[in-house]
């Protein structure tokens, strides 16, 4: 789960990591009030849950209060990568001497948290990692021992030309790691971390992603969720225990299991179609869940055919078939539905669907070909 910069900065501030003087605003008038309290000039930063907002024009300096209002108004009208800007962070203009990157994330291969630092700060760190990996300083963190003082000393001395910064840097990095573990983060990042004109360190930007799997024990993380930034149907699906992602094609799919769902989408593409969604119904196969899945898919007007691909293990195919019948009655399904139900109780499922409008396919490939053909006929 991602949170906004201003939320991450509040967490930093509470943890004792130095951040600029700043306030969040939802209207041009509020932005003006914030600027009055902070002192001019100020930086206005769009708060959206995607990267690259600077390039998109979502970060601007304003020198007068009138300018604050006009710039704020223009940013609040923006849409960045499909997301509407609803909040602006009004921040003091910091005198920057140099910029660095500092972050902690999970190294999947090492199965450990890792601290990453670079003197190439302020830019996309992924680009640095890809093109000039030697510019990234990294230290793997032993999950049982934590971030050790010698590791931080070494990172600091490799990062800065001035050894005097070591205690200050160590303090910030330790606080960052404490936040990482205490709040169950998957990523925590300061980009850029700057040395100011006064020679001290300051977190100019902040990014925190929380581990979705750990949200159950962090109501304080869940409370920061910005639902307006999420696709409403995806939120509805999630509440029902379905994993749904809307895509742009016209073949809707209902599949059990994430891997099989992706493989089904790939096969649709392979046979000349375009998947309309990713949908994993999960392990449970209650008819209500199936009906909801069908309803969510049909709420997308692009859908011209629906493919149901189930490999039954715990999930019983006869349950799925009954769910399909109920969905047919309740949801008023007007597009062709192709079902391929294999595994547990597949024969019973075929009998249940015998006299229904649902088209039966024996294999995954046959089902995909048929669904793609039906979607194309509808065009």
């Amino acid at each position, binding site marked *: 789960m991602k949170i906004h910069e201003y939320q991450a900065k509040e967490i930093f501030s509470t943890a004792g990591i130095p951040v600029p003087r700043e306030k969040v605003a939802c209207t041009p008038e509020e932005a003006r009030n914030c600027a009055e309290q902070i002192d001019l000039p100020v930086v206005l930063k769009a708060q959206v849950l995607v990267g690259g907002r600077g390039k998109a024009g979502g970060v601007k300096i304003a020198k007068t209060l009138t300018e604050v209002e006009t710039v704020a108004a223009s940013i609040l009208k923006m849409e960045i990568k499909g997301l509407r800007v609803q909040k602006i962070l009004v921040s003091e203009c910091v005198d920057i001497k140099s910029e660095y990157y500092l972050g902690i994330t999970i190294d999947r291969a090492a199965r450990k948290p890792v601290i990453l630092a670079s003197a190439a700060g302020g830019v996309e760190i992924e680009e640095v990692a890809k093109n000039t990996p030697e510019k990234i300083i990294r230290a793997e963190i032993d999950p049982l021992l934590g971030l050790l003082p010698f590791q931080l000393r070494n990172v600091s001395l490799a990062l800065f030309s001035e050894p005097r910064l070591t205690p200050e840097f160590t303090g910030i990095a330790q606080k960052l790691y404490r936040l990482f573990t205490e709040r169950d983060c998957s990523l925590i990042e300061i980009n850029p971390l700057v040395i100011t004109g006064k020679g001290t360190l300051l977190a100019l930007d902040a990014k925190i992603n929380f581990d979705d799997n*750990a949200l159950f024990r962090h109501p304080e993380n869940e409370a920061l969720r910005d639902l307006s930034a999420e696709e409403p149907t995806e939120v509805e699906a999630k509440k029902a225990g379905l994993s749904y992602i809307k895509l742009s094609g016209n073949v809707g799919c209902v599949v059990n299991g*994430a891997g099989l769902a992706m493989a089904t989408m790939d096969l649709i593409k392979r046979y000349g179609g375009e998947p309309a969604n990713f949908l994993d119904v999960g392990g449970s196969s209650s008819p209500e869940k199936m009906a909801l899945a069908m309803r969510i898919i049909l709420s997308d007007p692009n859908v011209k055919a629906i493919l149901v691909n189930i490999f039954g293990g715990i999930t019983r195919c006869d349950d799925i078939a009954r769910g399909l019948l109920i969905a047919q009655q309740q949801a008023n399904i007007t597009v062709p539905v192709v079902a391929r139900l294999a*595994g547990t109780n597949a024969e019973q499922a075929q009998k249940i669907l015998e006299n229904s409008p649902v088209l039966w396919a024996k294999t995954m490939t046959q089902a995909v070909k048929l669904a793609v053909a039906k979607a194309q006929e509808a065009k």
Partner: protein
Amino acid sequence: MSILVDQNTRLIVQGITGRDGAFHTKMMKEYGTRIVAGVTPGKAGQEVEGVPVFNSVQEAVKATAANTSIIFVPAGFAGDALLEAVFAGIKLIVCVTEGVPTLDAIKAIAVAQQHGARIIGPNCPGVISPGKAKVGIMPANAFRPGVVGVVSRSGTLTYEIAANTNEFGQSTVIGIGGDPVIGTNFIDCLKMFQDDPETKAIVIVGEIGGSDEEKAARFVKEYVTKPVFGFIAGQTAPPDKRMGHAGAIISAGTGTAQEKIAAFQAVGIEVVYEPEELEDKLNSRLR
């Protein structure tokens, strides 16, 4: 032979009195897996499907000489259950539980490594050596005893792929799990399959996210002489969207299906684009 589980497996079910634990105890037992004990704290003395229940893994191990454990406890308790099994001396622990916090998994895996124990998962369907033992939740009828080793990050996709190798059957099928951090990776399984005389061919079922498939490809080049087939799910997945599994996400342009397919092809792993192609490809290499 086979790998990881067989007739010598003496299994404990952690969370045996729960809905999933009880159901799969029945299914595994019907398959012929030797289940020697179950554990649910506070429920010692009960029986589930004729299996005695103990309060702790330590008591269960002492009474039954169990050597393997499977975990069905809820996500918030799975990290603790893993550590309990490790400290009780269990050397193979399969964690079926989905939604385990990453930092809990990381700690348990680090401790397991220090104790010489292997964790499979979390968030995995488990391990089956067809005809010998099933330590997992997979439907038994999708598998047949044979010579193909299958290792996969998925659940139902594993069954789909395995069902398409049934002409040759499987030595062992391992679902390593769909989380970002897992106890056993492709390389561990590839090594075991290469060293297992019964396994004649290996199928790797990967998906988007991370770089485990690329690392597996490099390992195949260095170590594996048996025919290897690869399937990658998620070619049509958009970036920055988590495709169900916590680990299946393309972030910052890395972890794409295209990269993984290219890595496979570069080392001579035969890439399969749909499960049904597998039967023919196996035929041409094994006959």
